[in-house]
């Protein structure tokens, strides 16, 4: 061997040693004999215990938060081979393919996690078996949300993203940097379909507008859409316009607070490109917001509160902390474009709380809504909780999925079996997306956090997930096209039939943006 070739030896050793080490330690060839039984559940981060999961969800990677130098998890169910994962750090990363196979062949069955921990003396312990259940019904494969830092008055990095729930892939739908570091919000889809969506785009440079995606065609509408709901027929979208003011609490956990000084509802008709309204949904003495259609398109549900102040320039306005919204509905005939009588579905007088964000399950059976101590913005109110109303009986209950922090901004899956919602339960500041199963007896099961490839992802992620919307597939319109539309001068001009709360499309004030 030539002298220079000796240097190849260490390289060869490394080349051979690395795969061998990986085989030895990376794979689950771990022999566990006579483990000591510990009669409690192990601590997991995130907490994936005693919950119901969709059969098409990505692997629920987690960290075993128990002291040890080796960790082994056996994941199994009735109808398939167990899946074993070993880790030296406690980070359990479950391989995608066997996980999928395990879940798909055990729909409706139970899913068990046996967690083993090895201590410094190489003695293994086994904890009580964690039991989860695999639902029969899939969750919609994608979820769209906005990612932002906890912003107040100014923003730079705001984007709407979509995540494939069956894997971990996240991609951008649109980012504010594509139109002068603008703000994007209030994204809304028609019947959980990614083909039809609308979102608000606001930029100091390009003005404010609504971007409408209708079967792949993009238009820029020269008005701002607030909270929006598509009519199930896809022929129109009702939206709110809100004159929002922001103010701050000098003490207490939540610094930010907002109030709608004025608000009303309008609707935009896709075919005729008109904006219309109706006196009952744009009452000058009341604040109307959060519209949502019944799945048959015959009723518009929304929230409404009396205006409690006379001085609309005072900040905060008088009695802002006494403002409570009622839940209303009004019938509508799409054929004749006629509105019916206004009805109170649930009044704030009855509940003592402000009723916000009604969303009806696609099967038309349940109405999920928030209630908080006052005001119009549940994400800033730690008191906000989710409530479920049976639309057949009109009775509502508070499901056991709530936390001590704000729970709000929920979205139904297209099969009415899953909800995704926002919760601040991990510390009170950062909003994370949780998923919960609702069974045929209207029981909502313990929610679990949207899984991530890195189980410690949420521990150091300083952005919030806002407005999670479940969708059946990916939004295929490219971000660059949406950015171009938001910059475009080619706009659909509309006349707004209401004055007062109506904001001008071009003006953008920081306080009008909120989480």
């Amino acid at each position: 061997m030539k002298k220079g070739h000796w240097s190849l030896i260490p390289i060869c050793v490394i080349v051979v040693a690395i795969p061998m080490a990986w085989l030895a330690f990376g794979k689950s060839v771990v022999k566990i004999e006579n483990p000591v039984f510990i009669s409690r559940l192990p601590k997991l981060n995130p907490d994936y215990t005693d919950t119901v999961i969709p059969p098409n969800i990505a692997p629920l990677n987690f960290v075993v938060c128990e002291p040890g130098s080796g960790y082994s998890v056996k994941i199994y169910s009735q109808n398939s081979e167990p899946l074993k994962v070993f880790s030296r750090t406690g980070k359990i990363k479950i391989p995608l393919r066997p996980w999928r196979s395990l879940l798909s062949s055990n729909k409706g069955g139970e899913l068990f996690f046996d967690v083993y921990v090895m201590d410094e003396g190489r003695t293994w312990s086994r904890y009580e078996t964690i039991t989860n259940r695999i639902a029969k019904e899939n969750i919609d494969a994608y979820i769209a949300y906005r990612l932002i830092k906890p912003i107040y008055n100014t923003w730079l990095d705001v984007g709407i993203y979509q995540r494939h729930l069956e894997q971990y892939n996240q991609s951008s739908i649109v980012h504010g940097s594509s139109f002068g570091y603008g703000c994007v919000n209030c994204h809304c889809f028609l019947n959980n379909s990614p083909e039809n969506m609308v979102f608000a785009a606001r930029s100091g440079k390009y003005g404010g507008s609504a971007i409408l995606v209708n079967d792949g065609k993009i238009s820029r509408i020269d008005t701002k859409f607030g909270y929006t709901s598509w009519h199930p027929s896809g022929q129109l979208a009702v939206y709110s316009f809100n004159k929002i003011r922001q103010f701050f609490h000098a003490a207490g956990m939540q610094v930010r607070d907002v109030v709608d000084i004025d608000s009303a509802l309008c609707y935009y008709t896709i075919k005729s490109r008109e904006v219309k309204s109706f006196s009952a949904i744009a009452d000058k003495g009341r604040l109307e917001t959060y519209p949502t259609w019944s799945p048959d398109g015959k009723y518009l549900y929304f929230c409404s509160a009396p205006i409690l102040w006379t001085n609309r320039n005072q900040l905060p306005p008088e009695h802002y902390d006494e403002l409570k919204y009622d839940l209303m509905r009004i019938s509508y005939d799409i054929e004749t474009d006629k509105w019916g009588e206004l009805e109170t579905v649930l009044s704030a007088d009855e509940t003592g709380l402000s009723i916000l964000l009604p969303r009806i399950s696609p099967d038309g059976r349940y109405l999920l809504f928030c209630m908080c101590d006052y005001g119009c913005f549940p994400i800033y109110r730690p008191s906000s909780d989710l409530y479920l109303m049976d639309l057949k009986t009109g009775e509502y209950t508070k499901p056991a999925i709530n936390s001590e922090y704000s729970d709000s901004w929920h979205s139904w899956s297209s099969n009415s079996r899953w909800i995704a919602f926002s919760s601040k339960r991990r510390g009170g500041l950062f909003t994370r997306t949780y998923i919960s199963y609702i069974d045929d007896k209207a029981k909502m099961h313990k929610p679990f956090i949207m899984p991530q490839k890195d189980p410690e992802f949420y521990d150091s992620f300083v952005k919030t997930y806002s407005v999670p919307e479940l969708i059946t597939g990916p939004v295929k319109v490219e971000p660059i096209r949406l950015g171009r539309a938001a910059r475009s001068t080619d706009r659909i001009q509309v006349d707004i039939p209401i004055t007062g709360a109506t904001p001008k499309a071009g003006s953008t004030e920081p306080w009008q943006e909120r989480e």
Partner: protein
Amino acid sequence: MKSVESGTSPRTRNLPITAGIFFAGFYLYVWLFLEPRLIYHSYVIQPDFPVFFTGWLFLKKFLVYPGGPVEYVAAFLSQGYYYSWLGALIITLAALLIYLGMRILITLVGGGYSKVISYIPAIGLLIVYNRYRHPLAMFLALLTAIWLSLLYEKISLRIGVVRWLVFLVMFAILYYIAGGASLLFAVLSGSYEVFVRRNLFFGGLYLLFGFAGAWLVGVYILELEITDACLYLTPFHWGDKRGELPILKDFAKSTTICLYFFIPAVVMSVSLWQRLVENMTSSCCTESGVGSKSSVIKKTLQYFWSGRAGWVIQTAVLMVISIASLFFSFDSTRKKFIHLLYFSDQDRWHSVLEEANKILIHSHSVYVNHYVNLALYHTGRLGDDMFSYRQTKESLFTLQTKNMRLRYSMGSNIFMELGLVNLAEKQTYEWLENTGNYPLILMRLAMINIVKGQVETARVFLRVLSKDMIYGRQARDILRRLDADPQLTGDVEIERLRSTMLVEDWVASIDGIVENSLLKLLERNRHNRMAFEYLMAQYMLTGRLEKIASNIGRLNDFDYKGIPRHYEEAILLYTSITGKEVNLHGRRISGETLERLDKFRGIFGRLRHNVRAADNALRAEFGNSYFFYYVFFAEKKY
């Protein structure tokens, strides 16, 4: 084509010495005079200083767009600026590599005699740092482009198609790692083809592909905006990614743009010049006489470019250019201000005042005033000396200033110190959004949440910070302490803030926050000295003498020996204007202040109808008094 040089001329022998001296001087200048640690600490005003965190998640972000790898490396290297010696080494190495690349490039195109030109890009880099900007990513991209074009030229492939393929591969690699700098590579390689290989077709093709390729790949495959696709990491791309990109302004930007033109221009002109010299040489050979005109020109040129005289001349030119560039490009005001920020970050308040004294008083911005007041408070001199410095009513809180980074950083700092924790939280989140995940911002947010008892949220910020190369250890230490004691009860600063922070909620709008907040703070804790002094300072700046008089009794809540001078002056003004007595709660006005008032009144009384004359007569002796400020500047008067 080979270099015209052969053998070892005296100038060639001297080149390593020249380069050694030049770069040694370069290093010492950057280390000891520019002090890269100042650039590290200038993130408050520096939109182009990057953060860096260890781990895959942070790296991943840089791998998905053209130019990301170079930005990642630049972000990593930038952390070395925390230590001036290391920062200087990084800058010097970058400059040295650019110099060497240029030198080889010029030699390759046949300009071995003009290697002193190779120093120009290094001088350009120094000029940009002289402005206290941070163009490392851009210069690393430039450096990569130069060296890759050298590699291309060194490979010297004969078969055209193979050359073309090699160019394509190199261009693609460079486009990925250095973004828009790949255009420079295309220009340099194209120039080489045209001027050295005399292959116009390939030269044109490279240039065409350089522009069209970046455009097609960036816009149509990667779906980038055209500026991001073609110009990223070049000085032509500014302002598109606020807070993330090297945003070079004014002189620094012009210099970098000039360099981008300079490098290919040098390559082209050296090639042309070389051809000219060759032509002259050949015509010289065809002419018979040794003393022909061409021969004389050639000898003259050789004497000035290649001989010892050439070396002396070029070295002298280099020195003159270097010294002149440094002299004219140095931004001393910016350096002083960054120094001031640095000292305030370190709580070195006497040094803040010393630095402020170096900045001419008339050029004191509201930002300088803000730090001066903070330093005066920390050194116990606010009530005695604040009017020795220029003051405006925005100086204390700077809530309406245009520079958002500074506004939010100052707001965050001052509200936190005062105990207005929620308002500090608001300002810090604004700061975070406008500036990025900078270590001190993350640390501030962690502290705010610990003070408020929101430990889980604090942990999120600390875990991010734990991946920082400089502050990571500190963050990990706090995380360990939180595990042991989630309230950090033994921490003096945390306890101080908890004892001063507001616990009773009230609704605040930033505009009308100052007076009410300070009064609420004093209601909460009457021993909050900073709240008291800032309240009195605010009253003085807005000319509210009656408020000063009515709050003077609060002095007894603290350990003041007498009455601070400016408060005495305000009380005397109040009594002399209104004729009302002020209850001094057992304290008394010093005789010296009484005498000064008499003297001030005497002069002002004589010249009151001529404001300018009064100003001139009083400024020297009373310019540092509240009498003077009240009469000439305060808004509210009796």
